[in-house]
């Protein structure tokens, strides 16, 4: 498929000053981790970006103690209107330093700068701005007459939207009067560490936000810490299940935002070209590293052939490559480990009889890359129709009737999101009513907003993030 030649349009990385090494952010100060430091790399080039401290149990103790002291002495007693002003201040600094954050996010994560610049970072600022306003209005949230904070929140976030997930966790927690200890993902710690600098710039009292870098062990130590009152986790269903087991029998409040295997359902009366764009956005946005990705395409049989021809043509025009190039559509896979998982599941897809189509595109020699891929001839029992691949791989199934579409869409232990494409309004409402998913996009996909609650049914987790509903996770009500 022909593609217009574009001259490279790289965003300058000079705006970011990455230090050679980073410590832990505890009680408003940088401290050395007691564990063995690890490197974070640019997945597009495999170059080392920085060395990052690894928090041990003792570091977790110190951070939780700092958060507890800040909760007891400063943040808990502080009037909501004052907490609000800190959060507004943070929102403003994020806006001011938006480009710097976007470049750093793309460097550490591999996502296209167009996305970090236009989606992630603006949503981060908006999230802080939104929850700032709640801090002195919690009694009006409809959750009860006297909402109280929980105390210290231990938060563990994934690598797919590093700073956005931080914002989803920290903004409501602070607005509700809690203090936090947050662990960013092992492969994407840098924007969280820059956020720690932003907290200092905002004069946020020490201990209100603590950032601990590390791997799974650090996260487990945080989640299991006896002085943590609230655990919030975004990540895989497998780890979420372990966390649910580990908080059993405690008084810790738990919210989980886990995996998904969303159906994107296209009816024969849909605006087909819009639907093609939506399907592309649904699965190739952020390299498919999206828990709510539309990873199962359900096509009504009568339009399947035409739709797939258009989809393949559109895939041929996707630009895969340098995340910092402003024309890039699909960036780098976040890690070698994730690339291996995507490859392995794709091979299983072929072995089980799925027909594979990969967009014709050149991939850079260094770094972790996976070309946009679709599988047709997929049946519901295939592993690529059941398991979350978390990459740019779409499984295509067909259906004949709306009832069959609903049955297939709901035939999954997950229930995070779904998409419906039809020009018939009553069918949208009928479908939306029957789909067992926390977010349904009708004639659109992958839209997010701080006012709009997000979260899953069934094994996609529990609790909501965003909106008035997101407050409940951080309040004793």
């Amino acid at each position, binding site marked *: 498929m022909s593609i217009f030649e574009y001259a490279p349009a790289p965003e300058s990385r000079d705006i970011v000053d990455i230090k050679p090494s980073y410590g832990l952010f505890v009680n408003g100060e940088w401290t050395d981790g007691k564990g063995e430091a690890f490197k974070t790399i640019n997945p597009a080039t495999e170059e080392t970006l920085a060395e990052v401290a690894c928090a041990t149990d003792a570091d977790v103790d110190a951070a939780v103690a700092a958060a507890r002291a800040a909760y007891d002495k400063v943040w808990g007693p502080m009037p909501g209107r004052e907490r609000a002003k800190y959060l507004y201040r943070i929102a403003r600094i994020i806006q001011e330093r938006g480009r710097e954050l976007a470049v750093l996010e793309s460097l550490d994560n591999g996502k296209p700068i167009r996305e970090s610049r236009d989606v992630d970072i603006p949503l981060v600022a*908006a999230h802080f701005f939104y929850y700032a306003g709640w801090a002195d209005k919690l009694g009006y949230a*409809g959750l*009860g007459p006297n909402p109280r904070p929980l105390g210290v929140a231990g938060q563990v976030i994934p690598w797919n939207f590093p700073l956005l997930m931080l914002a989803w966790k920290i903004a409501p927690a602070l607005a509700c009067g809690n203090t936090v200890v947050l662990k960013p993902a092992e492969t994407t710690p840098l924007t969280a560490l820059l956020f720690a600098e932003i907290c200092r710039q905002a004069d946020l009292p020490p201990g209100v936000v603590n950032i601990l870098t590390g791997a799974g062990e650090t996260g487990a130590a945080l989640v299991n810490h006896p002085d943590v009152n609230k655990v919030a986790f975004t990540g895989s*269903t497998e780890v*979420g*299940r*372990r966390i*649910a*087991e580990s*908080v*059993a*029998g405690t*008084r810790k409040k738990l919210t*989980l935002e*886990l995996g998904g295997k969303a159906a994107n359902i296209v009816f024969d009366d849909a605006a087909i070209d819009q639907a093609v764009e939506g399907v592309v956005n649904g699965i190739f946005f952020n390299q498919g590293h999206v828990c709510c990705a539309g990873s199962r395409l359900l096509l009504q049989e009568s339009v399947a052939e035409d739709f797939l021809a258009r989809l393949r043509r559109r895939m041929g025009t996707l630009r895969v490559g340098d995340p910092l190039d402003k024309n890039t559509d699909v960036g780098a896979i976040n890690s070698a480990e994730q690339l291996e998982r995507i490859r392995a599941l794709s091979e299983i897809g072929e072995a089980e009889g799925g027909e594979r189509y990969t967009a014709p595109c050149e991939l850079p020699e260094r770094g972790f890359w996976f070309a946009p891929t679709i599988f047709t001839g997929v049946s519901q029992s295939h592993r690529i129709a059941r398991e979350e691949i978390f990459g740019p791989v779409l499984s295509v199934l067909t259906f004949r009737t709306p009832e069959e579409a609903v049955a297939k869409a709901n035939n999954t*232990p997950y229930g995070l999101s779904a998409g419906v494409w039809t020009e018939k309004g009553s069918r*949208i409402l009928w479908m*939306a009513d029957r789909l067992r*998913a*926390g*977010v*349904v*996009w*009708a*004639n*659109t996909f992958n*839209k997010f*907003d701080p*006012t*709009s*609650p*997000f*979260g899953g*049914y*069934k*094994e996609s*987790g*529990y609790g*909501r993030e965003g*909106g*008035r*509903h997101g407050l*409940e996770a951080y309040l004793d*009500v």
Partner: protein
Amino acid sequence: MSDEAKRLAVRKTYKLYVGGKFPRSESGRSYQVTGSDGAVLANASRASRKDVRDAVVAARKAQPGWAGATAYLRGQILYRVAEMLEGRRAQFADEVRTAEGGTRKAAEAAVDAAVDRWVWYAGWADKIPQVLGGGNPVAGPYFNLSSPEPTGVVGVLAPQDSSLLGLVSVIAPAIATGNTTVVVAASERPLPAVTLGEVLATSDLPGGVVNLLTGHVAELAPHLASHADVNGVDLTGVDDDELARSLEVAAAGNLKRVLRRAENDWTAEPGIKRLRAWTEIKTVWHPAAG
């Protein structure tokens, strides 16, 4: 001595309430239920793991229809339950007093409160969507609406102390929003629950919406908490810390929503916590375009 022979009372057989019917336990087992004074009251069915599974099947089967009923209809049916219960006040007062002890007056107060609780939750059925849901002002050309939907099938371990009022207080909020339930009644005070089944069966409540099992919590609860087709579990009636912990671990298998034990004053106005606990918020985005 009178010529008339003293009339022999007709005793009731206390059975389970599953799928709108009153079966005995498939296991054929029963256990002796004694009153607060130690006198033997009845042989209640001792439900088994298979009974739990049958009840879950019945609850799952009933769930789409109950969730799909209009909130107005659900509200009317809950109100009808209150009407039926009101008509049996004296009978329930006897049963509650026999089970829990205390004065006649206290038992009557508990029954009255249970009737009123059905009325209270009946009114919530068509209001909770407005209180928990609503439009969200997203920054873009979209109509964005959040609404609460039922979690699905909820396993309820009913409180051990309050055999009627506590029982009603945990069932009504679950079914008001469209969930269906499998309820394990108070192990030592199960008789009011069975009689409540008779009320439910005559209130236009579809069979399977509430399934009532009697038996031992420690035996039945693990099967409920680990059942893959149950979406939530209410641990209120678990008296043992270690059992509660292990049930929560079992519930994590399919990430059931768990309502932990808490201090409950069943006479106080409940608030909407239990209504919220068994709903999921669904948010739908619609583009607004000409």
